C-alpha cells in the first residue's frame, strides 16, 4: 500500500500517516460477496416463533370486534393477540421533543387499540411455529370495522374540518415561524421578485432487506437479547428497557449485517416493539421480518411537502431575501423518539443555505393525516430545501437573463467569510462554496456543455443543464435530539485492544450498514497505532461489547466515531511505547511504532516486533518492572460541541434530455463536487455520493407513494412503485474539496447524505432548462412523463 500525502492537519500527527486517504477495499465485504453474511433473517434459533401482523385495511376505522377463534385453531399457532394483550407488556409512547416547541402527538401503542389510523396499522398479531403458518392463521382473523372519515389531503388536514385526534384539538402536530425582520422591506425594494410553489412526492426508503427483528427473552435472567436490523443499537436498548420494563443492563441489542437503512431503520416501529413484547410474554425467541408489501405500508415514508417560496433580488443579481411557506403531512402519529417535526424544521433551517442574503422569513406547518407515518429518511429536509432554493434561484437568474452559474457565483457566501451565521440561525464553521463551484464548472466543462446544448436544441433535441448548490448537516451535537429530551447519544466511543499476537481489535459504537464504517475505522486504527491494516479487526453493532454511542444517522459515523477511534488509537500507541521503553530500558521518546514493529525513532532501525511486545505484556509481565502495569486496552470518546452541526457544502450538476413527445427524461450525466473535510477513503466516499445521488434521482423521477382519496396506498409493491434501475442511471462524476473541520483531530465531516440532498434539485433544474425553449416548466416531483406532457399541454 503506497502512502499518500497526509490530509491530517493536527500538529504532531506524523504517526497517523498511512491508510488515511487511501482507497482500501472493505474487509467485511468479503463475507457478503459469498452470501455468508448474517442478516437478521439468516439467524436460526431453537424454539423460534414467528410473528405476522393483522393490519387495518382502512385508513381510519374503529375496530368493533376481533374474532380469533378460527385463527387459534389453525396448525402451528402459538397465540393470537390484540393491542390490549400486548399493552400488558409494553407501555405506549408519545413522540415529542422539548426543543420543538409546541409539538404534539397522541400516545401510540405497540398494537393499535380500538382504532386504526392508517391503512397498514397493525391491530392484531399471530405467533406461530413458522411464518407460513402464521400467515395462514392471520387470514382467519375476523374483524368488524366501523369506517371513519379519512383525512388524506394536507390542506384539508390544516383546515381541520375533521380532526383525527379530537383530544389534540386540531390536526397540527408542529408549527414554526422564523423571521429576521426586514423581509417585507426587502421585497418592496427589490427590482425582481419571483415566486413559485413546489410539490414534493411522498416516498420511502425501500431497503432491500425488510425491517427485521429477533427478540430472545430469557425468563431466568429477566434479560432480553434483540437481534435487530437497526442503525442505533444503544437507543433501542434504552427504549426496550423503558417500555418493556427490563433493566437497561439486561437488554442487549445486536445489529449484525443490515441490508440497507437510509434512515428507515433508526426509528421505533410499533410492530417491532410488539415482537419484543411477545418474546417476553411467550418466554421464547420471536422473529418478525416485514415483507415487501407490509414494508410499503409500515416503513416510514418521507417528504410530502407543498412549499411556496418567494425570492427578492436586485437588478444586478443580488439576492436580498427569501420568504417561505412550507406545509408537510406526517401521517397520524409523530414517530418515536426522533419525532416527525424534524424534516419541516430542517426545511426552515436550510432554505437559501448557500447564499449571502440577510433577510429571511419562514412559516411551516406539520399536519396529521390518515396515511402511513413519515419521519427522517436520508438527507432529511435537504432535498426539499435544496430543490426549492435552487429552483427559485434559477427563476431569478432567468428573469435577469444571467447565466445560472454566474448568478450563483454572485450570491454564494464568500469562502473567507467564516465563521458565519446564516439568517435561519445556523452556524457554519468553514465552507467552500466558491471552490466547489469552480471545480464543478471545470469538471463538467460547463462552457463547452452549454455550447453543445445549444447545438442540440437547434437540432430539435431538448437538452438541459441543472445546477444545485447545497449545504448539509453532519456530525450533529446534542443540539439535534439530546437537548429536546431524547435519550439519543451524540457522543460515540471506541475501544482498541492490542492482542498478544500484535493484532488490534477495534470496538466502536457506530454501526455498519454497508457504508464502510468498519473499513474506515480499520484504516484510522491502523494508522494511529502504527500497524498494517491486515492486523486490525473491527467489531460494531453490539451494545454488549462496544462503548456507548449514537450509532449511524445524520452523516455522523466517520466524523464522530472516526475521531473516537483516532483518539483511542493514539492512546494505545502511547501505552505500547511505554511497555517497549520498559522492556528495552530506553527512553520512550526514542521509540516509534511503525508497520507492526517498535523502531528507533531516529534511525528507524527495528527494536522489537509488536508480537514480541504482546507476548511479554500478556504472558511474562513478571519480567517487567515491579511498579509497571501495562494497559493494552484503551477507550476514548468524542462529542462535537463547538457547533450544533458541522455543516458541509457541495454542488451538483445534471445533464438531461427530455423527449417532448413522450415526456421521458434521459439522464446523460451527473456531477458532484463536495467538501466532507478529510477524505478517509476516497473510493467509499465517492460510492456514498453515487448511491445517494441515485436515491435523489429516484425522488426526482420515479418514486412516489400514491394514495387514493380514501387513504389507500395504490402502488405499494415493487412492480408499481418504481426505484432506479441500472439501465436508466447515468455515470456520476465525483470530485472533492477538502476543508477539514478544526473541531476534531481527524477533520472528517459527513458525506452519506450529500448525494440525496442535491440530486433532486439538479435534475429538476436540468429538466426545466430543457423545457424552457418549449415554454414549459415542472415543479411537482416526481417528474413523470405524464407531468411533463401536462406541462407541455400535450395531455
Amino acid at each position, binding site marked *: 500500500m503506497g502512502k499518500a500525502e497526509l490530509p491530517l492537519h493536527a500538529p504532531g500527527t506524523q504517526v497517523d500517516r498511512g491508510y488515511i486517504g487511501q482507497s482500501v477495499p472493505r474487509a467485511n465485504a*468479503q463475507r457478503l460477496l459469498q*452470501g455468508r453474511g448474517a442478516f437478521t433473517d439468516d439467524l436460526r434459533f431453537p424454539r423460534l416463533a414467528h410473528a405476522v401482523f393483522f393490519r387495518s385495511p382502512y385508513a381510519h376505522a374503529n375496530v368493533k370486534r376481533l374474532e380469533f377463534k378460527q385463527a387459534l385453531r389453525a396448525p402451528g399457532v402459538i397465540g393470537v393477540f390484540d393491542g390490549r394483550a400486548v399493552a400488558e407488556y409494553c407501555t405506549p409512547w408519545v413522540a415529542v421533543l422539548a426543543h420543538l416547541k409546541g409539538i404534539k402527538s397522541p400516545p401510540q401503542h405497540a398494537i393499535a387499540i380500538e382504532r386504526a389510523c392508517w391503512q397498514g396499522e397493525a391491530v392484531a398479531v399471530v405467533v406461530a411455529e413458522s411464518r407460513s403458518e402464521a400467515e395462514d392463521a392471520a387470514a382467519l382473523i375476523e374483524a368488524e370495522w366501523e369506517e371513519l372519515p379519512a383525512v388524506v389531503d394536507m390542506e384539508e388536514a390544516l383546515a381541520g374540518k375533521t380532526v383525527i385526534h379530537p383530544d389534540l384539538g386540531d390536526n397540527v402536530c408542529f408549527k414554526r415561524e422564523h423571521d429576521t425582520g426586514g423581509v417585507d422591506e426587502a421585497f418592496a425594494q427589490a427590482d425582481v421578485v419571483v415566486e413559485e410553489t413546489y410539490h414534493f412526492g411522498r416516498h420511502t426508503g425501500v431497503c432491500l*432487506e425488510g425491517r427485521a427483528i429477533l427478540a430472545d427473552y430469557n425468563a431466568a435472567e429477566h434479560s432480553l437479547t434483540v437481534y435487530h436490523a437497526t442503525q442505533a443499537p444503544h437507543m433501542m436498548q434504552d427504549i426496550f428497557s423503558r417500555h418493556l420494563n427490563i433493566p437497561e443492563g439486561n437488554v442487549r441489542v445486536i445489529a449484525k449485517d443490515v441490508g440497507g437503512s437510509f434512515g428507515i431503520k433508526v426509528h421505533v416501529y410499533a410492530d417491532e416493539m410488539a415482537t419484543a413484547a411477545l418474546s417476553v410474554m411467550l418466554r421464547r425467541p420471536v422473529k418478525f421480518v416485514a415483507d*415487501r408489501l407490509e414494508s410499503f405500508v409500515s416503513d416510514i415514508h418521507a417528504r410530502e411537502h407543498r412549499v411556496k417560496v418567494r425570492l427578492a433580488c436586485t437588478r444586478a443579481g443580488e439576492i436580498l431575501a427569501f420568504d417561505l411557506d412550507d406545509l408537510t403531512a406526517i401521517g397520524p402519529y409523530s414517530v418515536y423518539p426522533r419525532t416527525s417535526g424534524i424534516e419541516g424544521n430542517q426545511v426552515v433551517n436550510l432554505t437559501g443555505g448557500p447564499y449571502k442574503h440577510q433577510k429571511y422569513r419562514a412559516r411551516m406547518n406539520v399536519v396529521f393525516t390518515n396515511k402511513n407515518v413519515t419521519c427522517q429518511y436520508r438527507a432529511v429536509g435537504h432535498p426539499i430545501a435544496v430543490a426549492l432554493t435552487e429552483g427559485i434561484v434559477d427563476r431569478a437568474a432567468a428573469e435577469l437573463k444571467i447565466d445560472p452559474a454566474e448568478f450563483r457565483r454572485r450570491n454564494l457566501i464568500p469562502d473567507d467569510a467564516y465563521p458565519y451565521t446564516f439568517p435561519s440561525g445556523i452556524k457554519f464553521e468553514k465552507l467552500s462554496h466558491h471552490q466547489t463551484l469552480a471545480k464543478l464548472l471545470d469538471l463538467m466543462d460547463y462552457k463547452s456543455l452549454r455550447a453543445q446544448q445549444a447545438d442540440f436544441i437547434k437540432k430539435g433535441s431538448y437538452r438541459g443543464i441543472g445546477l444545485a448548490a447545497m449545504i448539509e448537516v453532519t456530525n450533529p451535537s446534542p443540539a439535534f435530539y439530546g437537548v429536546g429530551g431524547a435519550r439519543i447519544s451524540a457522543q460515540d466511543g471506541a475501544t482498541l485492544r492490542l492482542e498478544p499476537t500484535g493484532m488490534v481489535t477495534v470496538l466502536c459504537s457506530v454501526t455498519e450498514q454497508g457504508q464502510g464504517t468498519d473499513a474506515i475505522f480499520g484504516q484510522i486504527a491502523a494508522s494511529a497505532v502504527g500497524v498494517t491494516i491486515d492486523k486490525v479487526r473491527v467489531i460494531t453493532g453490539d451494545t454488549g461489547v462496544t462503548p456507548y454511542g449514537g450509532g449511524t444517522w445524520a452523516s455522523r459515523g466517520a466524523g464522530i466515531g472516526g475521531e473516537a477511534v483516532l483518539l483511542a488509537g493514539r492512546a494505545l500507541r502511547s501505552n505500547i511505547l511505554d511497555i517497549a521503553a520498559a522492556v528495552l530500558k530506553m527512553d520512550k521518546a526514542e521509540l516509534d511504532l511503525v508497520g507492526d514493529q517498535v523502531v528507533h525513532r531516529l534511525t528507524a532501525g527495528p527494536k522489537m516486533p509488536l508480537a514480541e511486545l504482546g507476548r511479554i505484556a500478556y504472558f511474562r509481565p513478571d519480567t517487567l518492572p515491579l511498579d509497571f502495569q501495562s494497559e493494552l486496552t484503551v477507550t476514548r470518546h468524542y462529542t462535537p460541541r463547538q457547533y450544533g452541526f458541522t455543516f458541509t457544502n457541495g454542488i451538483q450538476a445534471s445533464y438531461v434530455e427530455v423527449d417532448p413527445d413522450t415526456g421521458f427524461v434521459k439522464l446523460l450525466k451527473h456531477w458532484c463536487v463536495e467538501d466532507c473535510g478529510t477524505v478517509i477513503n476516497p473510493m467509499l466516499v465517492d460510492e456514498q455520493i453515487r*448511491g445517494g445521488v441515485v*436515491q435523489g434521482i429516484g425522488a426526482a423521477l420515479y418514486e412516489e407513494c400514491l394514495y387514493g382519496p380514501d387513504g389507500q396506498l395504490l402502488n405499494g409493491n*415493487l412492480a408499481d412503485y418504481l426505484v432506479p434501475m*441500472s439501465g436508466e442511471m447515468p455515470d*456520476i462524476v465525483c470530485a472533492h474539496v477538502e476543508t477539514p473541520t478544526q473541531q476534531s483531530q481527524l477533520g472528517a465531516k459527513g458525506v452519506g447524505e450529500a448525494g440525496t440532498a442535491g440530486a433532486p434539485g439538479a435534475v429538476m433544474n436540468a429538466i426545466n432548462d430543457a423545457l424552457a425553449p418549449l415554454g414549459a416548466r415542472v415543479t411537482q416531483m416526481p417528474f413523470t412523463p405524464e407531468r411533463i406532457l401536462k406541462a407541455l399541454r400535450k395531455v
Partner: protein
Amino acid sequence: MEHELETTLTVNGTTLRRRIQARQHLVDFLREELGLTGSHIGCEHGVCGACTVRVDGQIVRGCLMLAVQANGCQVETIEGLSDSGELATLQKAFHERNALQCGFCTPGMLMAARDLQIRNPKASRDEIRAHLAGNYCRCTGYQAIIDAVEEVLHGKS
C-alpha cells in the same frame, strides 16, 4: 391439507431427496430447509432479483419458482459458486471497486453478472446495464457494479 411431494434435486453438487410442501418457493426451501441463507428475499414478487439462483444453467427468481418444480434439476446458489471458484474473478472485481455496500443484493447481482459473462462475454457497457436491470441495488447507484463487470469482461481498469 398440506400437499407434499417427494422431490429429488441436486443443490451445489449434492443430491437430496426431500418431501417438500407443494406451495414452498425454491428460495424458501433453500433458506429454511437447507440453511443456504446467501440467497436473499427482497420482494417475493419477482422484481428485485435478490433471490436469483441458477437452475439447470438458467438464472431464475427463487421466489417465482416452486421448490418442487426443481425436481430432477441442478440448483446452484451463491454458496456453491463461491466454493467452486466460478465467481472468484467477479467477486474480486466487486471487492476492489466496492461494487456492494450492504451486500443484500450482491449474491443475486453476481448470479446475473455471471450469466452475462457466460452468454455475452463481449457485452458493451450499455448491455451490462441492461442485463443487470432486473437486479435492484439501493445502495451503490450501480456505477461501481457496472465498472466491476466491465472490468471482468474487458479487462478494463
